[in-house]
């Protein structure tokens, strides 16, 4: 739910990175953090386990600049990917204005992608987010691995009707990371423009 703060002249939006365990959600956020002007970013908060697996969420606030005198701020969150953190994923998704689904391109992770995708759809509906109307981007990560399936095969399962924009990525090198983020931000802002009359 975007928050328009007239006194502070700010518009705050929330983008959630979703996907199966070890698909690279945290790597996306870490790359964005490293490559963003320090003046435009806040502290990167990571709540992880002793083995660096996301336990609750990663959080990165970004200030992208001004539009018509209002500061546009985007709060990036990741969910924990491991299957048994389902309850936590649902909590992090609350209030999302845009969702990025990070898929693991490796053939042997296809089932995990599908399971996570279904879990995400279920949780979106539970939060009252219409999957058809919510800004949504897919990223096919780990394109550099020899075990990566062809993008066409991934699309058949995850984006069969090409309803949402999708990007190839190698989050460890940054390839595709900002393309994905920019598209998500554009979708969210366009949504704000379309919904210019506010409802309670």
């Amino acid at each position, binding site marked *: 739910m975007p928050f328009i703060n007239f006194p502070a002249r700010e518009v705050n939006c929330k983008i959630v990175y979703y996907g199966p365990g070890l698909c690279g959600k945290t790597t996306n956020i870490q790359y964005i953090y490293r490559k963003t002007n320090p003046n435009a970013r806040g502290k990167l908060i990571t709540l992880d386990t002793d083995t660096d697996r996301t336990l609750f969420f990663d959080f990165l606030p970004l200030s992208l600049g001004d539009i018509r005198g209002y500061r546009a701020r985007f709060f990036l969150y990741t969910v924990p990917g491991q299957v048994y953190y389902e309850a936590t994923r649902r909590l*992090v998704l609350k209030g999302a204005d845009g969702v990025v689904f990070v898929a693991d391109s490796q053939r042997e992770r296809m089932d995990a992608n599908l399971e996570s995708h279904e879990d995400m759809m279920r949780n979106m509906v539970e939060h009252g987010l219409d999957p058809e109307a919510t800004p949504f981007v897919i990223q096919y990560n780990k394109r550099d691995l020899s075990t990566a399936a062809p993008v066409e095969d991934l699309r058949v399962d995850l984006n069969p009707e090409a309803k949402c924009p999708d990007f190839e990525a190698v989050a460890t090198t940054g390839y595709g990371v900002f393309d994905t983020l920019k598209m998500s931000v554009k979708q969210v802002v366009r949504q704000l423009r379309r919904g210019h009359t506010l409802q309670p």
Partner: protein
Amino acid sequence: MIGPRLVLYDEDQQRLTETCGRLAREANAGMVFVIDRSGQLISQTGEVGGFDTTAMASLAAGDIAATGGLAHLLGEKEFPHLFHEGEKHSIHLSLLGRSWILVVIFDERSSLGLVRLRVRKFGEELSRMADEIVARAPDERTVSPFADITDDDIDNLFADF
């Protein structure tokens, strides 16, 4: 029509700041925040100087969300108050209405008992404000500042990337 649903005006901010300021003074608390359940910082009062209030809001909302999950597992509707005690600073969190959270941060100049008492005193007033702001009908000012932006405006957001 899809559109933003949480809008704060100057008069809302004044009322929140004034009430939170009285709470802070009467509870001897250093900082008082109001945040929403998705982690957005709505209002802040007090000695916020060196603290990262954005991160604090996000983590406090996560704290409430996780504790709410625990409550559900036990068959409870909510745990409406949380308290974390540190060596120098302590945090008291409580639910405001259906959507917001009140965060009070205090040190040795106050006590849990005093904070609880004052939160009870001001909590009802703040809860009413919260429910009213979240649920109110749109008025003539509720036009998104993004209503007439162009694709170029959006592209310019990434000028520094």
